């Protein structure tokens, strides 16, 4: 999987936000608000292919959390971004 090209994190209202533009007249625009760890993962993984294990591994390396929690957090991060259309499988 990979993060879709052309998406950019913006600073709006003090929040770190990614704007997912909808197709004109057919879809809704979505705003993805990223917390610090979600933003870090985004920046670390953008522009390359990665797996769920890569995401979990990155969280373990960065935050020193245990593997089980990292896998759960990675799954949640991926699910949300896939649902928003920000990650291509």
């Amino acid at each position: 999987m990979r993060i879709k090209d052309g998406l950019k994190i913006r600073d709006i209202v003090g929040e770190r936000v990614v704007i997912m533009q909808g197709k004109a007249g057919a879809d809704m625009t979505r705003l993805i608000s990223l917390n610090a760890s979600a933003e870090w993962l985004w920046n670390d993984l953008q522009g390359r292919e990665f797996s769920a294990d890569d995401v979990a591994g990155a969280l373990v390396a960065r935050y020193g959390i245990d593997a089980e929690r990292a896998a759960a957090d990675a799954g949640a991060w991926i699910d949300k971004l896939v649902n928003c259309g920000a990650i291509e499988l």
Partner: protein
Amino acid sequence: MSKTRRAMTRPQQMLLSLVRSGIWRSAPEKALFEGAGEELWRSTASLAAAQGVGAIAFDGMAMLPPDIQPPRMVQLEWGVRTDTAERIYARQTAVAEELASVFGQEGIKMLLLKGMGLARLYPVPAHRESGDVDIYLFGRHGRGEEILAEMGKANAHGVNLKHSESTYKGILVENHRTLLDVATLSPDAYLNATLLEILDSDAELSSAPADKILFPCPDFDMIFLMRHALMHLGTQEMVLRQLCDIALFLQANRGAIDFDGYRRAMARTRLTRAADTVVAAAVEYLGLDPRDAPPYAGQDTARLMREILSVRPKITGSPARVAWLRTKKFFSKHYVYPLVYPGGYAGIVWRTVKEKLADPRKACTPDKR
């Protein structure tokens, strides 16, 4: 605060402050924004969009202290529109680069008018909004159209005497047969010839490789941008973005413009008063350093700004409504016509018709190179 500023509405004042901040990267005047509620902010954002400066004003807004920034929803919606502007700019840039490359393979040079060339002068180029890609192929308009057709252009919107319009990859492309509207207004014939002379004498353009996007030199743009803005003022609508273009262009080209040549061209076409008013407005309302401006006489800038910032209803609806709105628009331009048509609008039309009757070829001859 001047009398002029007091006559402006609060959204107009807020917008001008945000735009100045956006183009010069300076802090907005905080006092103007204190106590501004959601409705006022929405009016300001809406005015910014109508004036073609939504993304630039967004940059200015982001420089305000958080406690006087607009409510969250207003910011998010404004951010989405800014994101859209950036995406359109990226697509326009890609199309322009592709066209230059394809035309270059045929040995056709492509000059990009307005758009990206001006966007480069803005702190964030992608925030200079543009509706189309304007290209000039140095007299090869017809071949350009054939190539565009081979490339799969879609939706040819029409051909007028100045340019052809078509859509390529979702981007509107205006392929200019002539630089200005020589067939409709007689002053443009003189200015068009002057612009062609400037292009001819530009050694940098002559030696440039054919597969790269070419941009006009400052002497060209000084006349072209002013004429373009005045044309909009007279026949369509001049918006704040065009005033920003002129301000940023003058600031970026300090000492590099032949102001004498420009003023001669304006005088020859009796546009000096109109052009001076635009320059004076850029100084007074956008904060252009007067040392960067061509010499200008003091003019009624407040009237010009009212004209630029006025809210205009869209001319749509039943035939009766369209006729009514057009009539209203015509009479609301009573200030503009003497300014941009100093010999009288009817006089310009008459002289133009007379010239075309005398030599019909003038009405449809593409620029020859």
